[in-house]
């Protein structure tokens, strides 16, 4: 196994954290000019391996061969020096600095005086950005960029110092289809430069569109590594979850009831330009839009999280006060934001306390919380949603992403709701958990709630929605029934 194409070889690497064996003697081989997919459920050990290769973690056992020679990584700096560049899922940019500064953060071009050579810095950044066909002003503050643009800047950084291996940790999780397309072009260009690419992802369609080889991890071990032509979705999924998942999008609910939520000419000073639509009981409305179309803004505006300058909301015929979260929450609205940690969970609080946050009133008598009732109720939902937690008093911080998302869903399942808004409910969640969450969405509709799902993942959109609204530039630019909706139609409306 020592042909000279191999640039990176991982042998019998193990890594143990208190209580968990994150990696248990895994092997992995990456060749020059190869795009290798690394897939596996959350907790399979993908990110641990990446962090080891990035020099963030130290391996307990095993060895790393880089260009045939053993490699000891002591710091992030080491692996950068050797030409291993990791594009992490949570973006590693400094919002306060400019694009150029971020691209060359590791080492600015300097003048003889030791001062930063701004001209060169910006010129070279411009060149790199051009090479990945990205038109950005290098002096723009990163905080003013969209997520996808930031992702591109990350990759630009990878190119800024001749990377030999580029590792991408779910680069597309935040991107919209055509952004993904241009990202793939970039990745293919990297491939043509002879760079080895390790592409970590949850989206199997990407594997078959982009990659040459697919490697599957499960529970810290290597399950399979096959050339893409020699395998198929079902085989990979089975390898990942150890069982075959039947239907990804169960639909048992049927027939919509009374209109519940009416939105008329909703507008904010930033994004929304007057949005009108209505949602019925027992109906799942999917809202699609490219990044910056105003999906999230719409959700926040409806819920009162962002200030609204115009329009009106009606819930079951009653006018809703705008811009008051407490008011809309009490009126029976629920919101699952896309930013799980930043806007959803209270990390210092226990699983139970996070679940009951909106509904804890119901367990209170004379303003005092009856913890028995609270715990009983929480326990019920822990079981119903199969949330993996040692106890109710366990800090939610320590749960896996999927389980955290379930806790947030439980939060709204517990409460008597009229309308629930789910913003990117399955972002960064593995196949197994995804399926369970899609099942829950269906149950919510069954229970007669009006469900609004905002998503940028086409299969999910087409899978869960009874009706699809498409947004672009802060307006609704298209509406399709479940039957008539196709990927092409939706995209056409989204670009309009």
């Amino acid at each position, binding site marked *: 196994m020592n042909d000279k194409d191999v640039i990176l070889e991982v042998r019998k690497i193990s890594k143990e954290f208190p209580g968990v064996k994150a990696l248990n003697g895994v092997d992995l081989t990456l060749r020059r000019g190869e795009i290798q997919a690394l897939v596996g459920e959350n907790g399979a050990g993908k990110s641990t391996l990446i962090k080891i290769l990035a020099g963030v973690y130290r391996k307990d056992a095993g060895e790393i061969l880089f260009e045939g020679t053993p490699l000891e990584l002591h710091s992030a700096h080491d692996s950068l020096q050797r030409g291993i560049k990791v594009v992490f899922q949570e973006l590693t940019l400094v919002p306060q600095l400019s694009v150029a500064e971020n691209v060359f953060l*590791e080492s600015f071009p300097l003048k003889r005086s030791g001062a930063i050579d701004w001209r060169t810095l910006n010129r070279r950044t411009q060149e790199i950005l051009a090479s990945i066909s990205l038109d950005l002003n290098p002096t723009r503050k990163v905080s003013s960029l969209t997520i996808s643009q930031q992702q591109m800047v990350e990759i630009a950084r990878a190119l800024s110092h001749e990377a030999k291996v580029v590792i991408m940790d779910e680069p597309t999780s935040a991107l919209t289809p055509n952004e993904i397309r241009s990202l793939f072009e970039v990745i293919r260009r990297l491939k043509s430069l002879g760079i080895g690419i390790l592409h970590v992802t949850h989206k199997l369609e990407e594997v078959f569109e982009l990659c040459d080889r697919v490697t599957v991890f499960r529970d810290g071990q290597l399950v399979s590594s096959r050339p893409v032509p020699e395998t198929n979705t079902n085989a990979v999924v089975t390898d990942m979850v150890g069982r075959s998942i039947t239907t990804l999008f169960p639909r048992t609910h049927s027939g919509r009831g009374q209109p519940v939520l009416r939105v008329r000419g909703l507008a904010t000073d930033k994004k929304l330009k007057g949005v009108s639509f209505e949602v019925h009981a027992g109906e799942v409305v999917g809202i699609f839009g490219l990044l910056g179309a105003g999906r999230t803004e719409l959700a926040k505006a409806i819920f009162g999280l962002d200030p609204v300058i115009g329009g009106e909301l009606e819930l079951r015929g009653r006018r809703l006060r705008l811009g008051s979260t407490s008011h809309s929450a009490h009126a029976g609205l629920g919101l699952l934001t896309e930013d799980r940690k930043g806007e959803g969970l209270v990390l210092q609080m226990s699983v139970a306390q996070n679940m009951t946050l909106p509904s804890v009133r119901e367990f209170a008598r004379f303003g005092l919380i009856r913890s028995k009732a609270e715990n009983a109720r929480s326990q019920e939902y822990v079981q119903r949603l199969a949330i993996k937690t040692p106890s109710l008093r366990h800090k939610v911080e320590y749960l896996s992403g999927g389980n955290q998302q379930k806790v947030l869903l439980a939060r709204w399942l517990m409460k008597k709701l009229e309308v629930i808004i789910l913003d990117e409910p399955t972002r960064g969640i593995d196949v197994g958990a995804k399926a369970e969450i899609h099942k829950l969405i269906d149950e919510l509709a069954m229970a007669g709630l009006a469900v609004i799902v905002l998503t940028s993942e086409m299969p999910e959109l087409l899978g869960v929605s009874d009706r699809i609204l498409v947004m672009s530039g802060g307006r609704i630019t298209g509406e399709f029934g479940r039957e008539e909706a196709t990927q092409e139609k939706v995209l056409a409306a989204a670009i309009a």
Partner: protein
Amino acid sequence: MSSNVLNRRSARFSLSRFGELGLLAVLVALFLVFTFSSKYFFTPKNLSNVLGQISITMIAAVGLSLLLICGEVDLSIGSLQAVAALPLVLVMNATGSFWLGVIPALAVGALIGVINGLLVTRLKINSLIVTLGMYYLLRGFVYLVTGKVPISDRSGKDLFFMVGNGKLFRFLPYMALLMIVIVVVFMYVLRHTTYGRRLYAIGGSPEVARAVGINPERLKLSAFILCSLLSTVSAILLASRLSSANHMAGQGFEFQVVAAIVLGGVSLAGGVGNLLGALIGVLIFGLIQNGLSLMNVGTQYQMLITGAIIILAVAVDELKKRHA
């Protein structure tokens, strides 16, 4: 498009220039009010005095700004002012040389900086707590070693006296000269050197910095040392003005400085702010003190007004930010 142009400038100079506009307005307003309410205010002599008076605060403010920008804070600078003056005056009285006194003073300052820095970066204790502890510790230390008896300058060195009281061309106080040099140097460092940009980086997002191979610990340590060194410089100036090392020196100084630079838009959260803002903040406080005293306003009214102005200024700033 225009926003793009603005972005270009703000990135080039790392200056959120509009950030200061609100405060600049406040500053100008104060200036006018005082000019019209006291004929002594707008005189070269008084203005040069004010310039000198704010120097002590501003020099320390430069150091503390560096710290705040990289996401830490130091509440012990006031107590340090009392500590650092001791070796200065002692050695000066012994050797009769000002410069021989400066060396141990700076050494002590650096040492304190190292201690603060190590406690924060190595033992991972919140800097607010570490330096609050040091705030008590150092003050108590001075009380103990001096027995609360000030040590006055017996070297009779004119140089020592001139440092804090002399003026260039009978107008520009040497203190102000030193302050301007320091401010300019560190403005340059913050804007145009890798070190400066990295301070912003680790203040903005430490984990990012680490991921790209920057070592936040080492940078923060250096910032702590710089902060203590600059506070020591301010301590030397104060000692010269008091022509003694004094156990009561610098009481409440840390809060003056923090208030001034936070007023100047340097964020306590780290990663945001610049020395121009800090300077404006310090100037606002300096002008209020000087102007009101020229107008014979009683201390109780001065306190009231200062407090009101702080709230006013910050509120205006916040309003502007949200409508920007």
